């Protein structure tokens, strides 16, 4: 019997993942990470709070599987939270879930699962894996496209994919809740949330104010041509494509076009200036393990919630960078987010937008 550690969060997806794997005949072990939270806010985080832990433990009890908690507070703070703070300091809009998947879920937790003797680690991500006829593992979108979470998994390589299972990727989300009900799991009615897990339900700006107050330095708002239009309250308060809160008198709506960290300037412009045709992504991971060296067409997502859009992806000489040229101009191309490229169902790879 193969052993699989299921990464549990106290949510419905990971609990159904555990139930399905047990039904499929695996020896299932539930593990949960104790993540970092600001002191005094342990109960307000979305994920992995004592309440969430009690739920996950109860699910394990109902499914009759062992359950262990691993302390990840230190490593989470040093990698994910620090990544978040560093990204904003550079004028980017970081997606810490990418750092978490890379460093915490698929390194720290995976290492623990393997040290425990597991053959696989499973998560409740909506995604699928299949082995192609060359023995390569392909990462596919979930069957329910509207819930597809393959985007955050673009960091996985062949070595990690041989150890990964995603049992719920084949099911539509409403069916997942039904399955949870049928197993009698208390997570069946638990509400999903999309906020970052360590923000304690707060706005990211308040988190930054508490933990990196030095980032809130006012500076000039300028147009592309350099004309000074007003003052901003700190670059971290704004994100690309943002319209609200600019406080610049104008007859036409103005949008954030970019940030210049070295001059502490916020660049704004009209809607027509927002659209860009190109981006460069670095630290590209190729899921198949082989970098493409010829340009290829793909559907690209420039953030987790974005719709895929057709582009030409051109690998640059340096190997782990690509130039992405979109067929139609894209708004909201934001440095620090990931650009992930698909061909049909298959996730080819992804990198960080520079």
């Amino acid at each position, binding site marked *: 019997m193969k052993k699989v550690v299921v990464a549990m969060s106290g949510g419905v997806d990971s609990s159904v993942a555990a139930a399905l794997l047990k039904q499929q005949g695996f020896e299932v072990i539930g593990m949960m990470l104790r993540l970092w939270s600001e002191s005094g806010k342990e109960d307000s985080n979305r994920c992995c709070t*004592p309440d969430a*832990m009690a739920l996950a433990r109860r699910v394990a009890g109902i499914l009759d599987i*062992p359950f*262990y*908690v*691993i*302390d990840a*507070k230190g490593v989470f703070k040093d990698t994910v939270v620090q990544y978040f703070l560093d990204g904003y300091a550079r004028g980017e809009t970081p997606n810490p879930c990418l750092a978490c998947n890379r460093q915490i879920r698929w390194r720290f937790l995976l290492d*623990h699962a393997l040290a*425990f003797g597991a053959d696989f680690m499973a998560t409740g991500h909506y995604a699928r894996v299949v082995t192609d006829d060359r023995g390569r593992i392909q990462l596919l979108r979930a069957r329910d496209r509207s819930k597809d979470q393959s985007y955050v998994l673009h960091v996985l390589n062949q070595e990690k994919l041989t150890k990964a299972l995603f049992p719920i990727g084949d099911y539509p989300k409403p069916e997942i809740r039904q399955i949870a009900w049928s197993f009698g799991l208390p997570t069946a009615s638990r509400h999903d949330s999309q906020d970052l897990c360590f923000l304690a339900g707060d706005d990211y700006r308040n988190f930054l104010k508490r933990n990196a107050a030095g980032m809130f330095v006012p500076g000039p708002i300028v147009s592309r041509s350099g004309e000074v239009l007003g003052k901003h309250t700190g670059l971290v308060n704004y994100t690309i494509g943002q319209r609200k809160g600019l406080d610049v008198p104008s007859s036409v709506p103005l949008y954030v076009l970019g940030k210049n960290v070295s001059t502490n300037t916020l660049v704004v412009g009209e809607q027509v200036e927002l659209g860009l045709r190109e981006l460069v992504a670095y630290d590209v991971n190729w899921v198949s393990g082989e970098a493409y060296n010829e340009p290829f067409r793909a559907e690209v997502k420039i953030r987790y919630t974005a719709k895929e859009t057709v582009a030409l992806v051109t690998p640059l000489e340096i190997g782990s960078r690509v130039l992405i040229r979109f067929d139609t101009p894209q708004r909201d191309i934001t440095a620090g987010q990931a650009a992930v490229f698909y061909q049909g169902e298959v996730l080819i790879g992804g990198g960080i937008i520079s």
Partner: protein
Amino acid sequence: MIYLDHAATTPMDKRVLDAMLPYFSDFFGNPSSVHRYGQLAEAAVDSAHEIFASILKCRPDEIVFTSCGSESDNLALRGAALASREKTGANWILTSKTEHPAVSKTVKQLEKYYGFQVKWLDSDKDGLIKADVVEKAIGDKTAIVSVMYANNEIGTVNPIRDIAAICHNHGVLFHTDAVQAAAYLPVDVAELGVDLMSLGGHKFYGPKGIGALYVRKGTPIFPIQTGGGQENGLRAGTQNVPYIVGFAEALRLVDIEREERAAHVKPLRDRLIGSILETIPDSRLTGHMESRLPNHASFAFKGVDGNLLLTFLDGAGFACSSGSACKTGNPEPSEVMYGIGLTREWGLGSLRVTLGVGTNARQIESFLDALPELVVNARKFARN
């Protein structure tokens, strides 16, 4: 699975279960009732009081049955401290830094909300509370002294007779938490010299959910659970007859078999300690080597997350515990670990292995074979 966590709890002896069963369905009466059903149930409770009295060498009415060792500690501390102060105005409590939370939390509450003052006695590096430390701290305003007989985390056995003598010389009440000790050490209260002594059933093959408190006649004490006057007015609530019967049977058996059980576990425990200290680098024994419970082995491993080690051990089929483990992933070394002078790096890596009547040499060798690699694995995840 191999069970090596007897200090946490023990499986119930079949003879105890057999003694209990008739009292669930046949002799189910309320001991306080006038009718025959009540009389039969009361007789069983009286008989249990007598069994305790003959083993503890006290009077039957000096025994109060409670729901657990923790409740006995609560009754002893809160009940006697308040009554003592009422009688004499004594307002100080002396207790050690190595007590079970059922004692220390109760004392902290008495300090915070009931106006008592507390002196927390330091242990030596082996966790031992020396009699002269008590002598230096005791005074005429001391209401009660509480020092545990044997420590659950590190196995150290304290010099109870000497401490009791000091308390008596000063006219101060002495309570000892004997919950862990009773499984292997004599509990003759006359010989020990204690005024109050807590016991718990599930540490010596009795059921969970039953405890007792010895209260020397004449000890000032208030009930903390008030109501119908059961247990000499010291603990209200319809008595848990089958569990009281089971508890008495478990105590009767431990009294008969005490030496045999100790002789069984001690060599296995010594083998465990010797081998682990030899084969595992950066390991140390915690607690006193000689003045120690015969079934108890506890260690500190440098640079190990104790919780993670327990997880690996469980996966490998061995059930143990740790002074720093936390089921919610927020481990901290216990007070006891810091109290014996361990740094956080050592204190987080505590492992407790406690043997019982069902432990055998094959299990110990199996454990010794598996442990070194698991410690190596756990150390891989150490963060600097």
